């Protein structure tokens, strides 16, 4: 069954690319507006080995990595803390509930005002953007640990700290991981979006710049690269998650 599914996935990529190619070559749209798929793909490869793109790619990657990791390190402990301490929960919950439906993208202009349009504002936006989903999933993960597990550990004389690391942390990992996956998607949107707004450097800037300069083929090529990166990162995360969960 698994093999069949994998074949389907490859198949659908082939079909979609074929549709793109067909639509482009059919002449319905002028070739500047919709360049054929193969040409675009070649363009992507050319861009990767060229000079400009890797520079921007690195800039985006650097921001994203810092923002994402800091967010992880900050949010997950807070979430678990919320599950452990009623007072912390009581303090944070209303704040989180109020800000949950608010798009964190709204913070971008303010942060740019405060911190300039450079790296710091973007990293901060990523941290803010990922914070809430990570905290919520960490909270639910830690909350969901069966009380019977914790009680038996206590009965066996385990200290509180040990309980935290040996029992609660591993048991909440699956929920935390699904939160991380969602945070990954959000962080990518935030990085890309903020770069498209700030227009200084990074993949988002590069993408939008090519649009403004009328270099449409570059736009498509960069889109393919971005999609590929997004897909790859998600795959890597899933693999890491699977391995860690097995080990636990």
């Amino acid at each position, binding site marked *: 069954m698994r093999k069949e599914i994998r074949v*389907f*996935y490859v*198949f*659908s*990529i082939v079909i*979609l690319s074929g549709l793109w190619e067909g639509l482009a070559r059919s002449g319905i749209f002028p070739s500047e*507006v919709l360049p054929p798929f193969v040409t675009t793909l070649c363009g992507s490869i050319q861009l990767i080995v060229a000079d400009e793109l890797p520079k921007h790619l690195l800039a985006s990657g650097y921001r994203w990595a810092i923002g994402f990791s800091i967010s992880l390190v900050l949010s997950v402990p807070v979430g678990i803390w919320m599950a452990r301490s009623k007072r912390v929960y*009581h*303090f*944070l919950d*209303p*704040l989180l509930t*109020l*800000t*949950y*439906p*608010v*798009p*964190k*993208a*709204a*913070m*971008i*202009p*303010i942060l*740019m*005002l*405060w911190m300039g349009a450079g790296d710091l504002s973007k990293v901060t936006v990523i941290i803010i953007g990922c914070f809430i989903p990570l905290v*919520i999933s960490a909270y639910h993960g830690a909350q969901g640990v069966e009380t019977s597990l914790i009680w038996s550990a206590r009965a066996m004389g385990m200290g509180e700290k040990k309980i935290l690391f040996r029992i609660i942390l591993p048991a909440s990992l699956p929920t935390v991981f699904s939160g991380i*996956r969602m945070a*990954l*998607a959000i962080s*990518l*949107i935030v*990085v*890309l*979006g903020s770069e*498209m*707004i700030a227009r200084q450097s990074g993949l*988002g800037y590069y*993408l*939008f710049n*090519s*649009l403004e300069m009328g270099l*449409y083929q570059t*736009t*498509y090529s*960069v*889109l393919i690269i*971005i*999609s590929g990166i*997004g*897909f790859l*990162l*998600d795959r890597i995360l899933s693999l890491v998650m699977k391995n860690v969960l097995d080990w636990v």
Partner: protein
Amino acid sequence: MKTVRAFSAVRRILLQYYSVFLVASLWEIVGRSGAIHPVLLPPVSKVAVRFFELLFFDQLLYHTGQSMFRMWTGLGLATLVGVPLGIMMARFASVRSLLEPPLTLGFPIPKVGVYPVLIIFFGVLHTSKIMLIFIESAFPIVMATFHGALLVEQRLIWSAESMGTEEREILWKVIFPLTLPHIFMGFRIGLIVSLIVVFLSEMIASAEGLGHLMMSSSRGFRSADTFVAIAMISILGLLFDRSLLSLRRKMLKWHPEGEHH
């Protein structure tokens, strides 16, 4: 009697949301103290005043209307198309094998990257944004509906069949009501996503709308206005989320599980 009840209600709110009031008060104090340049952090009171000024004497309502039009058109389309699609994916293996791969593949891709391409085709007015919102919110709605419809117990369908329900009726008489809890979940995510996307797209490239208002006031150093735009967005976001939750409670009163989040 009524004043006593009002009092205790107010007290309850204060106690529950004390952290919010704390933060708000801090904000006001810091804003007024002059420790931070007023352009960077205008005090809450100033923002509130400006809010009403823009609401009644300026274009806040207009911009809000633009944003909301885009968002709800995109979200509405995503729901109208996505829910039937999700249910059909669960019911018919052919539809599933056709759609599941591109949906699962496309999920982790930051679809905001498609925005420039949409601009190429549709320009910077409403259509490109509506399309972007549609694409972004369709994913969670279809996937949630699909996974929910898969969970429908075969025996329920069999019961309905033995009571004279025909094949086509089964979809909306049995599968749809059973999938409704999942549809709500998907719609909630779609709501949040579409909110993010509409403002993001307006901040990137737009001549009107709340996102544009934010950017232009920020560039013009009218930061109180920026905060007003943010406040409006927050209020809207909260309003929609709460309304959705209360609608969900009403429509799903038969559902055994407790409330979500």
